[in-house]
């Protein structure tokens, strides 16, 4: 356990809500609005944490445990993720499998909590969430496989810092393909626009938001913070794939990666402003396209 690896966790905990702020500000600029403050997500979290929680009599401990398990699983996944050319806090061979399934556990707990409420809308949202994540998971693993193949190592902490300028000269196109596939998965897994609309308030069309309708107060804050951290983790993954920062000193690496992550936030905002949401039936096609990118990145040998 080294202090340098703690820097990323600190940055993520601190800046993840700002990522959402940047996404929303980009959307506001596109729409010609002034938009909410950049720090709105922090204000929301502070407000929710001050409130008390209300629990329906029909719910059981599963409903109360959901947000806690969800947030802690996402927090644990952050300890596996390298950032800024540095290794992660915890690393071992094949740690990306644990990373994927910690995020899977977070989703499972949210889904169980949603089912526990007994609302038909939440059950529908849970069903959709699980369907789409089942489609996204193989693509995520194909991306990890492609990264492992082109860097020759099997741990996040060695994989992402191994991407240097020379990796780009011989496997650049593959890295771009992996990053595109990961970006598509990021949008799908974090319920961003082509798949789900984070701003919609029509239960019939919501996916992620509908599952958390009955959570309030600190529980809802946990869920919001957890999803912000998850979005940050995925973006750090995309940025780590794209930035050739292997061998760069710590401060430069961290500054470059953080800047890259916020550029990605602007890109997410731009996608959300320029694209319409896909019909639910078109989502498998979207994921098949992402799979095509990932498989192609996996098979090209340069």
């Amino acid at each position: 356990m080294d202090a340098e690896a703690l820097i990323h966790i600190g940055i993520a905990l601190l800046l993840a809500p700002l990522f959402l702020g940047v996404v929303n500000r980009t959307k506001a600029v596109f729409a010609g609005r002034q938009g909410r403050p950049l720090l709105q997500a922090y204000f929301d979290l502070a407000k929710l944490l001050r409130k008390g929680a209300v629990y329906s009599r029909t719910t059981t401990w599963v409903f109360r445990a959901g947000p806690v398990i969800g947030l802690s699983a996402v927090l644990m996944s952050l300890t596996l993720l390298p950032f800024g050319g540095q290794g992660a806090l915890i690393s071992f061979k094949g740690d990306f499998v644990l990373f994927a399934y910690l995020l899977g556990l977070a989703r499972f707990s949210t889904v169980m909590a949603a089912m526990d409420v007994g609302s038909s809308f939440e059950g529908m949202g849970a069903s959709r969430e699980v369907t789409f994540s089942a489609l996204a998971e193989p693509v995520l693993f194909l991306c990890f496989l492609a990264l492992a193949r082109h860097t020759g190592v099997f741990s996040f902490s060695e994989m992402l810092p191994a991407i240097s300028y020379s990796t780009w000269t011989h496997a650049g196109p593959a890295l771009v393909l992996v990053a595109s596939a990961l970006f598509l998965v990021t949008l799908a897994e974090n319920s961003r626009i082509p798949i789900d609309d984070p701003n919609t308030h029509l239960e019939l069309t919501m996916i992620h938001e509908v599952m958390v309708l009955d959570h309030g107060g600190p529980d809802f804050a946990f869920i919001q913070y957890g999803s912000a951290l998850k979005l940050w983790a995925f973006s750090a993954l995309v940025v780590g794939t794209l930035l050739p920062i292997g061998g760069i000193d710590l401060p430069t690496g961290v500054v470059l990666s953080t800047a890259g992550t916020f550029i990605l936030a602007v890109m997410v905002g731009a996608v959300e402003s320029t694209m319409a949401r896909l019909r639910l039936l078109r989502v498998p096609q979207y994921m098949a396209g992402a799979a095509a990118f990932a498989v192609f990145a996996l098979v090209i040998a340069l």
Partner: protein
Amino acid sequence: MGIWVDSTIIFIVLTNFMLLASSRLAALVRGVALQGFTLGALLLLTHSDNLTYRVWLLVVAAVGIKGIAFPMFLKRTLNNINVHREVEPYIGYSLSILIGIAGLLLSLWIGSRLPLPGPIVSTLAIPVAFSTMLTGFFLIISRKNALTQVIGYLAAENGIFVFGVTAVHSSSIWVELGILLDVLVAVFVMGIAIHHINKEFESTDVDRFSSLKD
């Protein structure tokens, strides 16, 4: 240098997936136009060490015909026949993409087995040429609209073009020009035929042609 050739070739595969995934005919026409321009770029990149007037002639002909003339002509046909999207293809779009991936893997296997005379510019070139041809043939058999089938035919021809540009050297340029001319005539004939078919039957769905009676 090699990385730019590789990137261009990879871009051709991406346009193949675009052709497989889009249901809008206008998007298909755009995809095939993009492929035409990419072929021009590929030609320039592979011959960048000796850019003779023959190479330039072929670049201008390829981009002019595949990138500009065909798309404009197809677009005009599209406006005339007043059909904007492929309705109910035989094979759905998600499955089409998966079949495209399978075709790519098959082409990689073929590419690794095929003995070639002389050096080629990139190890990806032959697999991508095959996969572009397969994409074209797949579009022809899996879609019902006659215009999509013409686009499939163009994609298959683009695959042959990639093969010719990367595997066979400068002597093939006159052959390529000859093929371009043939394709040009074929596409114009097909375009006019589609227009007349549409006028006669009020549809370009090839399924209906099988029930023709006098």
